[in-house]
């Protein structure tokens, strides 16, 4: 069974992002970029399924500027078999990403695609669900456990009240939550090996998709800053202030 894993290049989660003073977006020049953390979890899960003999081939896909090839390289170093870069300088929103991924799925015929639940830059939490809709596939979002048995993927999902388990008819889309696994680090030999793994480059037009965004960003601003308050010296002072000053208890 082939698995396709989309991996997004995002501003590293440790970076303190700064809003550009002209209000057009956040500063990305000279900022450390990494694979979206949820996508690392997706790659790891695909590798574990391959190690169990459930999966035969893992294809890592990234969509965006040429530098997204680095993100694919990271997935290859972790253990993915080959990569596809959908290269464009255009802004991609989840609807366009889902359409491009659908086109790739039609070409590659995977039985499973594992995505992150959320990209930590746009915080959309949408692409996996949209891709499932476009393909007419089942979806298991926010997965914390995955078992594949024949034509059924059993997925335990992190939901608001706790955990929920659903059985998906394959082919299926699964999106990862934080507790699914702990991604491995790529070893040096595997980083070397990954250099020889193939990455194919295609363009949105090759896939017959118009990626034009439907949402126009009018402006981006910093949220109002919270003022740090005061330190209190004791528990008694804390309780007194909460009762008489803040009046919240």
């Amino acid at each position, binding site marked *: 069974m082939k698995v396709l894993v989309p991996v997004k290049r995002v501003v590293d989660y440790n970076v303190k992002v700064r809003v550009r003073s002209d209000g057009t977006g956040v500063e990305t020049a000279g900022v450390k970029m990494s694979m979206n953390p949820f996508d690392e979890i997706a790659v790891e899960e695909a590798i574990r399924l391959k190690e169990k003999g459930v999966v035969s081939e893992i294809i890592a896909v990234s969509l965006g500027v040429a530098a997204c090839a680095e993100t694919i390289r990271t997935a290859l170093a972790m253990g993915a078999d080959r990569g596809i870069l959908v290269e464009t300088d255009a802004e991609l929103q989840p609807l366009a990403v889902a359409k491009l991924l659908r086109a790739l799925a039609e070409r590659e015929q995977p039985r499973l695609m594992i995505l992150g639940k959320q990209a930590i830059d746009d915080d959309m939490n949408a692409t996996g669900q949209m891709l499932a809709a476009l393909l007419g596939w089942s979806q298991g979002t926010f997965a914390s456990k995955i078992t594949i048995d024949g034509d059924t993927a059993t997925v335990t999902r992190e939901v608001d009240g706790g955990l929920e388990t659903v059985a998906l008819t394959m082919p299926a889309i699964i999106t990862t939550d934080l507790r699914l696994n702990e991604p491995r680090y790529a070893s040096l030999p595997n980083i070397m090996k990954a250099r020889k793994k193939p990455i194919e480059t295609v363009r949105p037009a090759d896939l017959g998709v118009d990626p034009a965004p439907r949402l126009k*960003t009018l402006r981006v601003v910093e*949220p109002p800053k919270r003022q740090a308050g005061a330190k209190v010296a004791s528990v008694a002072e804390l309780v007194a202030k909460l009762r008489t000053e803040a009046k*919240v208890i």
Partner: protein
Amino acid sequence: MTALVLLDHDAASVKQPARSAVAAALKLGVEVHVLIAGENAGAAAAAAAKLPGVARVILADGADYGHGLAEPLAALLVALAPDYTHLLAASTAAGKNVMPRVAALLDVQPISDIAEVIDADTFVRPIYAGNALATVHSSDGKKVITVRAASFDPVAAEGGAAAITTAPAVAAPGLSRYVSSELSRSERPELTAARVVISGGRGMQNGENFKLIEPIADMLGAAVGASRAAVDAGFVPNDYQVGQTGKIVAPELYVAIGISGAIQHLAGMKDSKVIVAINKDEEAPIFQVADYGLVADLFTALPELAAELERTRT
């Protein structure tokens, strides 16, 4: 123009985040209808009919909707969509699961997690863990929206008297099946609805120590939350997680205990009215957003806090 809001419910009542989604829909300046989909959910529909501002309740009652599976629910919303300009739900696990699927079926780019309505086409939404606020304008014919409940005061639970109509039968795609759930039971208020939230972090050291929070939560009528580190370490269940990728809360009072204050955690609580931090490291970033900071070892501070609250009880 008419909006349809998919409501989270527990078969008997409408959940508070859903009432916030209704409040957001009312800000669009359009007529607002709501949808209750579930199994034996008549009581929830009756409760929905009482929400002020709601003009109509649509009830879809049937086994296909009993567990909120995304595939049949999306098919239902798509069948209802021709009558609506806006389709909304709260950004709960359920709303986030189904609304993007609906959007794709309608060839629409969803607008996730809105924090403000500017007009019927323009919204503010947080990006980068709330470190930036983007104002976005949608060019789609229909808007498919999830609503950050913490950013909208919920409509009251009572006051309205809307008519209840029945949804048309829609064939379910039958792609997935509900197997089981493991819900964390608690007598406490829900995290996203509580007036007071007390969260513990890695500093709590283990699950047993969360018992130190309990008497305090009891006295304050608080919900208990946690940082990702505390959840990952297995101290508490996953649904306790507050943050960018967990629950977003904005209570009157948020108490962070043994939590350092990573941006991903702040993203889930920094709109709280009053923030208290208890941490033994005076340099912890959480103090930069705390109204009241106490530098102390939590293992002495928590019993003291319980005793002081008890002593000064009015």
